């Protein structure tokens, strides 16, 4: 059995999103629930900025992107919370 490799996270700056979702201080799994809801509203090619302070999101969100086929552009660390940039690549 091969060990599953953790997706590598690219740290980025200056991405301009089409929509912003703030779940800072909201408890897990709100980051995944809101991510799923907001991505449904976006059109293919649009970018969501999801803000969360939950460190587990560094594992969950890349995992969610891998499972759904959407693209994780990267993460910005503000020092207080993370900004995840997710591009809708599948309908």
């Amino acid at each position, binding site marked *: 059995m091969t060990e599953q490799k953790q997706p590598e996270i690219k740290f980025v700056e200056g991405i301009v999103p089409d929509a912003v979702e703030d*779940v*800072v201080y*909201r408890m*897990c799994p*709100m980051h995944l629930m809101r991510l799923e809801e907001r991505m449904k509203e976006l059109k293919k090619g649009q970018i969501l900025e999801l803000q969360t302070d939950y460190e587990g999101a560094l594992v969950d969100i890349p995992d969610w992107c891998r499972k759904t086929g959407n693209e994780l552009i990267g993460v910005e660390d503000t020092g207080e919370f993370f900004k995840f940039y997710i591009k809708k690549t599948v309908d």
Partner: protein
Amino acid sequence: MFRVYLDHMATTPLDREALAAMLPFLENSFGNPSRIYDLGSEAKEAIEHARESVARLINASPGEIIFTSSGAEANNLAIRGLAKANERRGMHVITSEIEHHSTLNAFRSLQKEGYVVTFLPVNSYGEVSVEKLESAITDRTTLVSVMLANYEVGTLQAVKEIAEIAHEKGALVHTDAVAAAGNIPVDVRALDVDALSLSAHTMYGPKGVGALYLREGLRIVPLIYSGIQEEGRRGGTENVAGIVGFGKAAELALKHLDKVERVRWLRDKLIEGVLEVEKVELTGHPEKRLPNHASFIVESVDGEALMMALSFEGIYIGNGTACISQVLRASPILLAMGYPAQRAQCSAIFTLGRETSKRDIEYVLSKFPGVVEKLRQISPLWKG
């Protein structure tokens, strides 16, 4: 025995309509609202309906309502949650000396964690000093919390003015509206507050449920950690029946707001009659006060003794904030207003409800002078 309940600041009776709305959720509709099957979704729908009713009472949006276990929890969540969420901007927070213990102790807990807390003084009417706020607030102040109306003396605070001053400095504003809601119109937009606490059991709803209004877009650090309940802001399986009862109580409170003038008229009759007794003084502001609130200092009569003696006549009044009056002889609120300790022990609080009748007030006025007279006869302080 004829019974007159005039302690509506401590709690109100549960409205029958609120009880009727709650019962299905204590019986057959017992599902967990987080479950997506029908038993769960009917509980979830009932919660969301209640959220709309509570929001309507204070002119908020349903998404701005977080249900809690009490007004005290709402105060704690607002104070600790907003202070923590804004800690990077500053660690100076402001409140007043006459807040409810749930507010004062939440601020004291922050003090222990290194925050600088300013407790604003009040004048002899129990009004928070706006001038003192102006001189205490800085660019590093993150939160100002002042109650809308005081439980013990009924005085209304200039919350709108306070919000204006606080917002100019970039501070958030919380107000404890537990004593006010249901007794006067409360509008979060008109007050321009960022957070506001409510409790169901002081507006004819059940005990064990409260709510925090939190302005849309604001971040708050939770007090109780769990999962997705209350949009990830307050953990724990919801008190479905309690929340449903709160929703109905909020609907009824809005409907009955037109009864305020009748209550005020009865309250004024009560004040007039009580003040006819020798050496009795009204506490709090004579006009800027809750319409159902009458509070007095009855010289040389211990507040607790008066409360008990009146209860033997079937009359129920208060002698201080319900949770502290048992342990503290002198009211800290009256002390903050400048009353000497001996007089601050002689507090009598009459708070009317929408069911209070003219007959009730006449009964109270027929008994009050005799009860006071009797207590003064045995009081070592009375020099009548």
